[in-house]
């Protein structure tokens, strides 16, 4: 079991969601976040007015998957979130200690 955290461009969320659904993954947690990586704070010109951006709006998608699916999920998320330009985001894979379904008390992979 691994936890996968993807920070992506917000408008790519629907593509990512649909691509994950194609893999049979139905559960995920989505949060609107702000952040920056290499695309860090800079000035931009939008329709003629200049402004400084410290943090860019992003969406964080979190999901926990069995080890067998990790590579596939990572590849799928990366493909669906890609635009090829700066700020496409990151995918992180984290070790997962335990998962428990609260309603039933199931543990491990059957809980995810």
């Amino acid at each position, binding site marked *: 079991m691994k936890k996968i955290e993807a920070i992506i*461009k*917000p*408008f*790519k*969320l*629907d*593509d990512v969601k*649909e*691509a994950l*659904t*194609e893999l049979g993954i139905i559960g995920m947690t989505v*949060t*609107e976040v*702000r952040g920056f990586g290499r695309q860090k704070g800079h000035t*931009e*010109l*939008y*329709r003629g*007015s200049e*402004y400084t*951006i410290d943090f*860019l*709006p992003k*969406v964080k998608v979190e999901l926990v998957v069995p080890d067998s699916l990790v590579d596939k999920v990572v590849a*799928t998320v990366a*493909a*669906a979130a*890609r*635009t*090829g*330009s700066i700020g496409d985001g990151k995918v992180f894979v984290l070790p997962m200690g335990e998962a428990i379904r609260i309603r039933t008390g199931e543990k491990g992979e059957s809980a995810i």
Partner: protein
Amino acid sequence: MRGVGDLANMTNLLTAASRDRKALAALKRLGFGEPRRALANLHALTPDPRDAELLSPLLPRLLQEMAEAPDPDMALNNLERLAAQGERAALFRLLGGHPGALHLVARVGGTSQFLADTLRRRPTLLSWLLEPGTMRQWLADEMAAGLAQSASAFTRPEARWNALRRFKYRQLLRIASRDILGDADLTVTTEELSRMADVCLAAAWRWTEEDLVRRFGEPRAEDGSPTGFAVIGMGKLGGDELNYSSDIDLVFVYGDDGFTSGGEEGSIANGDYFAAGARTLVEALESVTDEGYAFRVDLRLRPEGRMGGVVLSLAAYRAYLEERAELWERQALIKARLCAGDASVAARFLDLVRPFVFRPGMDPDIVAAVRGMKTQIDQSLRAKGVQRRHVKLGVGGIREVEFLVQALQLLCSGDDPWLRERNSLRAIFRLTERGYLPQALGRFLGEALIFLRTVEHRLQILDEFQTHTLPEDAAALGRLARRLGSTLPPVEARRRFEAEYRRITQGVHQAFTEFFAAPPAARAAAPRIPTYTALKATGFTDPDRARQNLRLVLEGRPLVPYAEPMRRALHAMFPVLLEALWQSPDPDEALNQFERFLAAAGPRTAYLELLAERPDLLANLVKLCARGELLTQLLVTQPELLNGLADPSTFASPRRRQYFRQALAPALGPRLPLSERMDRLRRAKQAEELAITWRMLLGVTDAERFSREMTELAEAALAAAWLMALAETAEAYGVPRDAKGQLVGACIIGLGKFGGRELSTGSDLDLFVIYGGAGETDGAEPVEAHVFYDRAVELLSSILGDVTAAGVVVPVDLRLRPGSKGSGFASSLEALGQYYREWADPWERQTLTRARLVGGDPRLGRAVRQEIRALVYGREAAPPHLKEMRELRGRMQKELGKETPGRLHVKFGRGGLVDVEFITQAIQMTHGKRHPAIRSPHTVTALGAIGRAGLLPGDEADTLAAHYRFLRRVSADLRLFGARPTDTLDLAGPIPARLAKSLEYPSRKEFLEDHKRRTAWVRALYDRVVPA
């Protein structure tokens, strides 16, 4: 805006009680129509005190933006709904932190419920819209890449189609936002919408096809070659003027019948294959899923409409057009273009359709049919009651503008291809530019179409309904006016809008009615058209047609009535015209062509006034028209050339090479793109060619001098094109240098007529290019010298020979170059000698008798000339192989001459031009070693020298030269008479009589007899000099 200042201090607005009178009054002052609801929305926006804390710093700016939105209530309501969709804190941060966010949300939310809902359903798109890279015009390629990127993550068809739907909504939101914010005008918006549809269609067809190929294999024509399918866009899509909620009008065609090569499910007929594809495509585009839908497709413009098959082969389409197509269907095809699928099928389709849509000349049936269609429109309007509020079909609405434009296009674009324009707005500009629409009217119609289409857009974008009716409700109309950009309060905005709408629609309707009104009864002052008998007596062979033409000349083509100054000019000109016609070699043809010229140039009164003031010019123009279609065509497409002809210096004296070089110089403008320079070269060369021909027709130059000028013009064009080709090639590779760093030059050798300075109308340039020797270019990407010159020659050939919108300069023929057909386009000096010594056939050596240096590096040129002389006339050069020459000549006569009792060939026929050339060349190759004087590539000069050297008995050389000149004149005239240059002389048609007249023979019979006598003499001599 008053009130905002107060509000800045009213931190309690977010917490004010819902009936707080002060708060409500303030909101009302700001322009909210329903202050209570606005206040409720503000409360709903901040359900939590923490939200209110985040929002309150933005509040003044937010309320200001909302107040300025076309519909403040709607804007605020939509903002509240958007906020409910995601994390408020994130949204408020975005609205506060991005300078364009509040403005965008307010304008979009206050203009279009449809877009606001789209955004609410996909709130993540807001941050995308706020990226600087998003809000600009996207090229088709960029959109295609975006779609491919999104779809690439999916393999399941349904998922791919969903990605396409999301792509569509995303792009729609972008395009419409730019429109609403005023960043894009109507033309850009509708073009972007059309490009977006194209991109979706292309991807959709690709996916559909992949699946079909897997199931059934590839479709093949009967002969086994692959065949394809094209999605043709019609209507607004075809015209690149798509609306937000337009259906897309499509027609599907496929190349050829046959069967597929077979796949998982076997092989089926192409028709079934493409029908299945079309059904899948349409279904996928139209079906509605959670992600919405892509497009609504309208296939009713296909043959037989709803009753017809969904896909048609090209052959079936042709049959339909030939047998059944009605006028409105032809009218609809004006807008046809390739949207997706196989470009070659689409090109074949458009080629097939063109002659049915754009008919040359004036089809009197069209006028009646167009009037009939107009009457139908009137009747349907009457049946529904006068609809002033219908933007599209109402009185003075969009349809009246489009109908008028398309009717004019149908009427006039057969003769004037410039008018074949799919986009309505551009068509109006072109019609005005060409004078078919008076300047003021053209400007007004353009303005009216933009206004009406913008109104239509704003109506439709509100709810994405296909509505065309202005709202009855005064308040709604006020909001519409503000959505159209008015910043006035709604009541005032509505009043202004109504006045403007009335002005526009009344103007359109007046133009429409006047345009289709029957022409006013002929004025009393109109000149009388000569009677049938009078015309017959003065040499017209078809007096009825002539009378009809004269009427058109006087009254203008139907629906294109003359303006008053023009009418006066024409009336003044009429007697002079008749006089000029009677004197011309072929009055019927002259009148036909003159009418065509007038229809194209006529609306521009300036040309007519010029002609009326200058009877000499008119007479000459009529003479030119009598010379047939080729020249008139030039004038029809570029009437401005007439100005050049009116300039006395045009005919004064023969022109020299230096003059032509200067005339073509504008084509060399260094900062212009190559395509523009190519077009300039074409136009400049054509203008000069017309002037050269003009001088010949007027007798300023004789046939000999004419060829010389044509040759020198070609040399000037060649020099310019060679410079362009070298510069372009050098830009890519640098210039070629040998081992010592010296430039490796090249020169151009002309052969055939070009070498002999005997070019006439429509001649190709026979040439080859020789470069100095081995070397390498000094650019970033070095290539060998032969590669450099190969590229340069290829480019030269396309700069001169490619057919662009401006026509061609002159076709280049490289087939006589040293080396086989497979070899490169340029040879080194060394390879030249080697080839002719070791490989060439005797006839190839014969072609070198007419070799002449025509351009490039003169130093190298001299070396090449020396080498060529050595090859033809040098000590080791073999004497001509007369038997082989005779065999070759026999084949040319049979295969290229194809003479029959009723058809002569001036060039390849018995006793034709080639006979004279072969006689000359045989003598040159036999005696040239000892008589350097006879080596001229120019046939007449060479013959003169041959006579002086006594190489032909008596005055035979002079007689031969005289016959040669005669044949050249016949050939030159023949080339001018036809639509395309030919050397074939049909005895049956009108041509012999015309030739007789232009060569000043008393009759057709005498001309033909003389022709027979001369060619028989030439053939007899040929048999002697080149015996079997």
